[in-house]
Structure formats: structure tokens, C-alpha cells
């Protein structure tokens, strides 16, 4: 093999070898994989915490832990899953790895900054973990850090908040890097409307990252200052307004929902054309709908606060705007289905995962309408219904697509193929486990079971038990998935350069990619999803 096409595993950007060649790398692919290691580790921690919570709820009253432990566990589950897994998950792993390749670049615009943002992420994660073990005990406010409890709680709130601040900084740096990369690093001929849709989605996400994250940063700083000095900005006793905190928190945290879901939608727009062997239907509509979601997503934050005290006018305006977000989302779903129509569908594992996604995400989206309507929301606020809704959207949406992306790009990233049969079984088990775990929560929520409660009335026992058993199936499936991936890494067959028959640029290069991505800079003449070029592409 020619020196220039040696894979990025064997050839490094620096003079070191072994672990240092990774820790000091500036290669976007290695950084993507380092993110993957870290993020999956925290994902597993989050899963284990979730399992413990479900185990506690297997019967009414105290089962395996006391109420305070339960409070810290649901807080940590939220903080870890949101800040350490789902927000960085798709952009930091797959965005880092594939965004430069898909636009024909050899790296991101600021490789050193990219490495820095990985370290900042790790520092933030370490701070979260350290806050668990310091005197005072782990944070117990819930991941939303609502005032006034987050000021009064004697647990390590400031430390955990500072960790979230640091993680936000990492997110901002990645966003700046991706926007600049998309603007400046596209290969000759790669116009904006020739970029793959995953790039579009990641680009829109990057904008939200830099536009929304500073607001949570200042909010967090204010809470820390409030805890340390008692300035009174959120303290009604000194004239402050606790509701203002909620506004500022959700001005970030609602757009953050789109930071989580947009890249997932981008991955779907990659997988569906590849396995339907058809050009994506409505390319521009999908690209623009990402930007539309990013924009409208800004103006809906107060729908998290319908019951916390706002004028009726504000409430119906926010309710209306919330419904409007469904439009660009609907555009996407419509175009995906239209792409599959009359395509020659090849139901390989990544495609099956996407089917899983469409089903689960639709349930999540439709129940969102129930919560977006004022009258029903008042009844369902702070019940299990909300918990079920956001797990269907976040986990059923982004989480499922995390696995879809892993199954789609695994052969490209590692040059190994996993066991197709195993992954088909995993898709089915995941579907069963997921619905068993979360669907009963819709029913319980509708019946009035409040969220974040450690105990419950005896009439909920059956549903709670179904849910707990579901959590075992789901977690078992996820560990099964990681198991066959690790097996594939060690003993898997060698993957070819284009196992699925994709046509975006990453499928034009060897698996795993060479260090410089492209031995020769590609000439871009086709549309991103023009499958007529498949005949000329080599699959070796």
C-alpha cells in the first residue's frame, strides 16, 4: 500500500506513538473516536443509574435506596445523559469523523481547537464525577437546576453547575469549528447545495450551539454567584424573580433539544437514500427545514413553563409557536417517506434502525402536541407523561439514531463488519424493550403519577413493574449491541470501502480512511445523492 494511503490508525499527525499519538492528535477522525470512547463510557454510567432507579420503583415504598439517594440519581441520570451523552453524541463523534470527509476536506478548520474541545469535555466530565464524591454529596436538584431549591440545597450544586458551564464551552468551540469548516473547507465544486444532508444538519446544529449555549453559561454563572454571595437576582426576598431563571434556563435548554435532534435527522437523511437507492426527495426542503427548525426552535422555550406563572397571552403565543415547529419536522418526515416510495429498499440493519426511529419519534412527536396544548398540559405537567414524552423524543429519537449511525458508519470507521443477524435481533429487542419501558409511563402519567417521585400508590404497581422489566430488556440489548461491536473489532470480517452502496464522499475512500482522507482531492460533479455514479465506484 502506498505511503499516502496508509490508514489513520497506522499513520499519525505527530511524532509520537502509542497512546500519546492519540492524546496529542490533531486528526479529526482520531478525535472523533476519542469522543466516542468517552461518550459511550458515560452513556453506560447513565444507563446503570437508570437501571437502579427502575429497580427502586419495582415495588412501592423503599426497595433498595432511600429518597435522598433517589433524588441524586435522577439528577445525575439527567445531567449525564443530557450534557455528556446526547448533546455531544452525534455532532462530536460522527460530526467530527464525517463532516470533513463528506465535504471533501482533509480536516476541520481548527484541528488544535478541536483537540482542545475534547479536553474541555473531559475536564467537564471529570468535574461532574468529582462533585459526586466531595463532602456535601451529589447534586439533588434535578438536571433543570430550578431556583430556589438549587440555591438552598446543601449538596455540591456549584461544582456540578460549573461542570455544565465547562461542557457548554466545549460545545461552543465545536460549533465554531464546524461552521468555519463548512464555510471555508469545502472541496472545489462542493457548493452549499451539493453538501450531504448530514452536513447541513450539523451546520444548523453548530449555529444553535453557538447562539444558545452562552445564555445557559451566564445563567449558570448567576446561580453560582447567587449561591456564593447571595446577590438576590433570583431571590424574591431581595426583589429578584425565580421565574426569570426558568426563562433563561429554557432559552438555552429548549434550543438544546434541537442540538440533540437535528444531527439525528441528518443521519436519517443519509441512511434512507442509501438503502432505498434513490435520490433524496426534496433535498432543498430538507436542508432548509433544518435551518427553519433551528430558527423557530428559539422561540418556543416558554412551553416548558405553562404552569409556572405567565400571562395567558404569552401562553397561547408560545403554544402556537410550538405547533409551528411541527411544520418543518413534518416536511422532513414527508420527504423521507417520499424518498422510500418506489425505491428498491434493501433492509440492512442501519435502515431497520431508522424505521425504529420513525416509529418511536412519531409517538414522541405526537404526544408533544398533547403537551403543547395549554389545557391538556396543565393536567399533565410534571407527570410521567412528560417523562415518557421526552424519552420517546430524545432516546427514541436521538438515542436510536445514535445506534443507526453506529451501524451505518461502523464499517467505515473501523474497517470491520459486524454480524448482520445479531443486529437484526438487536433492532427487534430494542423495540420491545423500549416500548415496555416507556409506554406504561404515558398511561401512568395520564392517571396522575408525578415524575421524580420515589414512592407510588399501589394501583401503579403493575405498570411500574412492566416498565422495570422493560428497562432490563432495553439495557440488555444495548450491552448486547456493544458486545457484538467489540467482537467485530476483534474478529470481524474486513469491511469493503462501500458495503452499503452509498454515494456520499466517505464511501469513495478506503475503510478505514487514510490519514489525509483523500489521496487525491475529489472532483465534485454529481449531486450528493446521485446513484448513477454507483456503477463507476469501486467496492474493495
Amino acid at each position: 500500500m502506498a505511503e499516502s494511503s496508509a490508514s489513520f490508525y497506522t499513520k499519525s499527525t505527530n511524532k509520537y506513538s502509542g497512546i500519546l499519538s492519540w492524546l496529542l492528535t490533531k486528526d479529526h477522525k482520531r478525535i472523533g473516536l476519542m469522543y466516542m470512547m468517552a461518550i459511550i463510557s458515560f452513556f453506560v454510567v447513565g444507563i446503570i443509574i437508570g437501571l437502579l432507579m427502575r429497580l427502586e420503583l419495582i415495588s412501592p415504598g423503599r426497595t433498595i435506596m432511600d429518597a435522598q439517594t433517589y433524588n441524586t440519581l435522577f439528577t445525575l441520570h439527567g445531567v449525564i445523559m443530557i450534557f455528556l451523552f446526547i448533546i455531544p453524541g452525534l455532532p462530536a463523534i460522527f460530526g467530527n469523523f464525517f463532516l470533513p470527509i463528506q465535504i471533501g476536506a482533509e480536516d476541520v478548520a481548527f484541528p488544535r481547537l478541536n483537540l482542545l474541545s475534547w479536553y474541555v469535555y473531559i475536564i467537564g466530565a471529570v468535574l461532574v464525577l468529582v462533585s459526586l464524591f466531595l463532602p456535601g454529596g451529589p447534586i439533588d436538584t434535578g438536571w433543570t437546576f430550578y431556583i430556589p431549591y438549587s440555591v438552598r440545597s446543601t449538596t455540591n450544586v456549584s461544582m456540578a453547575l460549573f461542570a455544565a458551564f465547562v461542557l457548554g464551552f466545549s460545545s461552543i468551540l465545536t460549533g465554531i469549528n464546524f461552521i468555519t469548516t463548512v464555510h471555508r473547507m469545502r472541496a472545489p465544486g462542493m457548493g452549499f447545495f451539493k453538501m450531504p444532508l448530514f452536513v447541513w444538519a450539523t451546520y444548523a446544529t453548530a449555529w444553535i450551539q453557538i447562539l444558545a449555549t452562552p445564555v445557559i453559561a451566564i445563567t449558570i454563572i448567576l446561580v453560582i454567584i447567587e449561591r456564593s454571595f447571595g446577590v438576590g437576582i433570583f431571590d424574591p426576598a431581595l426583589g429578584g424573580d425565580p421565574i426569570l431563571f426558568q426563562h433563561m434556563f429554557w432559552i438555552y435548554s429548549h434550543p438544546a433539544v434541537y442540538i440533540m435532534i437535528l444531527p439525528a435527522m441528518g443521519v436519517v437523511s443519509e441512511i434512507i437514500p442509501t438503502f432505498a437507492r434513490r435520490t433524496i426527495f426534496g433535498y432543498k426542503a430538507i436542508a432548509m427545514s433544518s435551518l427553519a427548525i433551528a430558527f423557530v426552535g428559539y422561540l418556543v422555550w416558554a412551553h416548558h413553563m405553562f404552569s409556572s406563572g405567565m400571562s395567558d397571552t404569552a401562553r397561547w403565543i408560545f403554544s402556537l409557536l410550538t405547533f409551528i415547529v411541527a411544520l418543518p419536522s413534518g416536511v422532513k418526515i414527508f420527504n423521507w417517506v417520499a424518498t422510500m416510495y418506489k425505491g428498491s429498499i434493501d433492509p440492512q440493519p442501519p435502515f431497520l434502525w431508522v424505521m425504529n426511529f420513525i416509529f418511536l419519534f412519531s409517538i414522541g412527536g405526537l404526544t408533544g402536541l398533547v403537551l403543547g396544548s395549554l389545557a391538556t398540559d396543565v393536567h399533565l405537567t410534571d407527570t410521567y407523561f412528560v417523562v415518557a414524552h421526552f424519552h420517546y423524543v430524545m432516546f427514541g429519537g436521538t438515542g436510536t439514531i445514535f445506534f443507526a449511525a453506529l451501524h451505518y458508519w461502523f464499517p467505515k470507521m473501523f474497517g470491520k463488519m459486524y454480524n448482520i443477524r445479531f443486529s437484526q435481533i438487536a433492532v427487534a429487542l430494542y423495540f420491545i424493550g423500549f416500548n415496555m419501558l416507556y409506554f406504561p409511563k404515558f398511561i401512568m402519567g395520564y392517571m396522575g403519577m408525578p415524575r421524580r417521585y420515589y414512592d407510588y400508590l399501589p394501583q401503579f404497581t403493575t405498570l411500574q413493574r412492566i416498565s422495570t422489566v422493560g428497562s432490563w430488556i432495553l439495557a440488555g440489548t444495548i450491552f448486547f449491541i456493544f458486545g457484538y461491536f467489540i467482537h467485530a473489532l476483534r474478529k470481524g470480517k474486513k469491511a469493503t470501502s462501500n458495503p452499503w452502496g452509498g454515494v456520499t464522499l466517505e464511501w469513495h475512500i478506503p475503510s478505514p480512511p487514510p490519514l489525509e482522507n483523500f489521496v487525491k482531492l475529489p472532483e465534485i460533479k454529481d449531486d450528493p445523492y446521485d446513484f448513477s455514479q454507483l456503477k463507476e465506484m469501486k467496492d474493495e
Partner: protein
Amino acid sequence: MSNHSDTVHHKDNVSAKMGMWLFLFTEVLLFGGMFLVYAVYRYQYQDQFKLAAMELNTGIGTLNTIILLSSSLTVALSIAAMQKGNKFLSLVFLYCTQIFALMFMVNKFFEWSTKISHGLFPGSKELLAKPNGQILFYGLYYVMTGLHGIHVIIGMIAIAFIIVFIHRDKVTQQDFIKLENTGLYWHLVDLIWIFLFPLFYLIQ
């Protein structure tokens, strides 16, 4: 080191500047959150804010504004000097900027310590005896000027690095993007002060 990233990318000054502008944008939003809080409470406690603002020393505020504006000028001059290849003059102007920044911080220190010696600081007995609007005014005053002060210090550290880079010829007439970006950051610090100054010292 390989040529993988160092030579190819770092020459792209447009990228570097674009990244810097995006970063400044996030800074504006960070302070934007603070200005939002200020606006909400100013609207809610108009009279109290006026009363509390009279206590602030407009003289020192004006002096600091002049100092900071001058420091922005010297940074701009330093960049212009570097463009023309005058390393010495560029350094002189950067040292001037550092002195101005230091003067600003010293003034700030005296201003804050006077307030604190009068018992006006968050949580103090004197302040808690005042009406809510005044407590909030002083809370915001300390938080916003404090956050701005931290940015001044970060800017000073950045400029110190640039001074070292110029001495070592890492920043030159051909490649002065680091100096330019630092200058941009410094202008932002200045710009934020230009908004803080009237909000706290002038509107009465």
C-alpha cells in the same frame, strides 16, 4: 510534526478571523443574558435604580471609559504598525495597551473597595437595609462590572502572549492574525464597557 494541519490550515487567515468573530458573537450573547436581566429589573424598579445609580462615582466611570477607549486605539495602532512591518512600534503600542488596562483595573479596584468600605456589597447589613430595587442594582453592578473585569484580565493575558510572540518573531508582518484576533477581542471588551458605562453611571 507533520504538515497535516500546521502548514495547510493555519495560513487560512479568513478562517481564523471567522472563528474569532463567531466566538465574539458568543461573548455578546453571554453579556446579552446579563443585559436582559438588567432590563427586566430596571423596568420593574425604575425609581430605585435611579436612586442607587446616584451613589456611583461618575468621575471614575468617565475616566475609565476614556482609558479603555484609548487602549482600543493603541491596539488598533499596534496592528497598523505591524502591517507596515514596524515591529518596535507595534510592541510599544501593545505595552501602552497593557498600561491602560492596568490603570482601568486599578481604578476599578479603588471604586469597588470604596463601595465595600461603605458597606455596600452583596449580603452586607447596610445593603440589606435598603429597598429591593437598590439591592438588585448593586448586585447587578458587581456581577456585570465584575464579569467585565474578568474579561479585561483575560484580554491582558492574551496581549501578554502576543507581546512574547512578537519578541520571538512568531507574529510578523506576514503572519499577524493572532495579533489581529487579540485586537478584536480587546475591542469587544471595550465595546461592552461602552454599554455598561451609561447603564450604571449615566442614566439617572
